[in-house]
């Protein structure tokens, strides 16, 4: 199985959301719309946008309403309650760029995504896969050293 990087995790989690929490997926489509969001995680960028009710991932083209930059460790620390969103921003572990309206809308979209995600029975295994892949990535340099 390929290592689930952030774009793969995001794509699969949105598919789960559409299937198991469709009202949240529909609201997310309205909040993010066609301009969408650019996510850069561990140096890899992807744009999330909606065409009507359907989500799509594509290469960013700088037209996204909001840009987010972070890393897998910060995402997992947020998920594990080790870090608050505010602290992530203040400690510059998470960057957000966009107009005030767009950032406010992103906050609503994130809340909607999370509120739906916690109601999806299929999401915990997906998150665990994302977490384990992070451990593999972290361990790789040490494994390389033993060769």
């Amino acid at each position, binding site marked *: 199985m390929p290592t689930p990087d952030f774009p793969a995790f995001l794509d699969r989690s949105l598919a789960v959301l559409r299937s*198991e*929490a469709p009202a949240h997926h529909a609201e997310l489509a309205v909040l993010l719309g066609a301009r969408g969001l650019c996510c850069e995680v561990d140096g890899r960028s992807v744009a999330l946008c909606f065409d009507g009710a359907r989500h799509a991932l594509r290469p960013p083209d700088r037209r996204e309403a909001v840009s987010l930059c972070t890393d897998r460790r910060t995402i997992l620390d947020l998920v594990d*309650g*080790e870090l*608050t969103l505010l602290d992530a921003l203040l400690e510059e572990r998470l960057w957000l760029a966009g107009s005030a309206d767009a950032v406010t809308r992103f906050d609503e979209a994130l809340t909607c995504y999370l*509120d739906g995600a*916690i109601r*999806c*029975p299929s999401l915990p*295994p997906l998150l665990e896969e994302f977490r384990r892949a992070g451990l593999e990535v972290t361990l790789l340099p040490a494994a390389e050293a033993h060769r």
Partner: protein
Amino acid sequence: MSVQPRVLDPAALGSLVLQADHWRRSPASVGGPAGHKEWSHFCVFGEDLDLLINLSLMDGFGGIETPRLTLLMRESGGEWSGDVDTYVASELEIDEGGVDLCMGPNTLRFRNGAYELDVRLARRSIRARLRLELASRPALTTSVPLSDGAGMRWFVVPRLVASGTVAREGRRTQLDRAPAYHDHDWGSFGWGGDFSWEWGIALAEGAVPWTLVFQRISDRGRLRTLSQGVLLWRGDRHLRTLHGPELSVRCEGRTSAAGALRVPRIMSLVSPGRAADLPRRIVVEARRGADALHVALELGDLAQIAIPNDVARGATIVSEVRSSATVEGVVRGEPVRFEGPALVELNRADA
């Protein structure tokens, strides 16, 4: 007169447990309405640590029955640890109409008049292996109204004695006949509905093993009480229930939830708010005829369990508060006076 906790005739009580403490399961699985909630709840008060173990089956979004283990541990210094693990339906095994359950690697069994629990967290180093022997007679309550016609029933074994081991982070603690409590609750309702509750148990440490349960269910704004009661056991026998207008309840002060453990941990991101209407002290005055009880519950440190609401966005926050109880009064002509550890649970929807 000293009344030692004793282990009752396992065969006689075992049949009562098997008749009443079985898993009801959601009717949604056979085409019935969704909304079923059910949990089997154990609290253990050890010398060095307390445990709260809750195995639940709840209809989630779309009526999908979701198995969960909640395991909270409190060290004697007041530090809480634990988590909530969610399982998928294929990891759940329940004998039809039985008490026994397997949920992933976790098991609950009822054998020879005792509950046997073996539970561990997937991502935290906590494992409890316990045998809980009945030290009181079980009781089955009538339906407790919540709101909008919804109701909940519960089966209770107010006092047990728990023995076994708790392993965490490389340390092992042996429990030897520690006082414990068990209930099993079930009903059809939606989290986030128009209800809230205060519930507490107190187990006496003195010569007479008194056990007290307090419950009050209110509307969400806590402006209207739907039901309230105090149940008192002396040793293994139920002595008195005082309820409804026989009780006067007042809450004093405020307990802060700032910095408290909230599980599952992702809920700190989803529902980060810490403002909460949690009292510092709950005082219950209960009276019927010559029977009178004064109950004071002093609330201390706490952990919170966050449950996604069914009827709205947001979450219901259930605060589990380690407390101490002081109970005084006269019931059936006998003086009642004891102090002991207590656990108070406060249910508040946050949105």
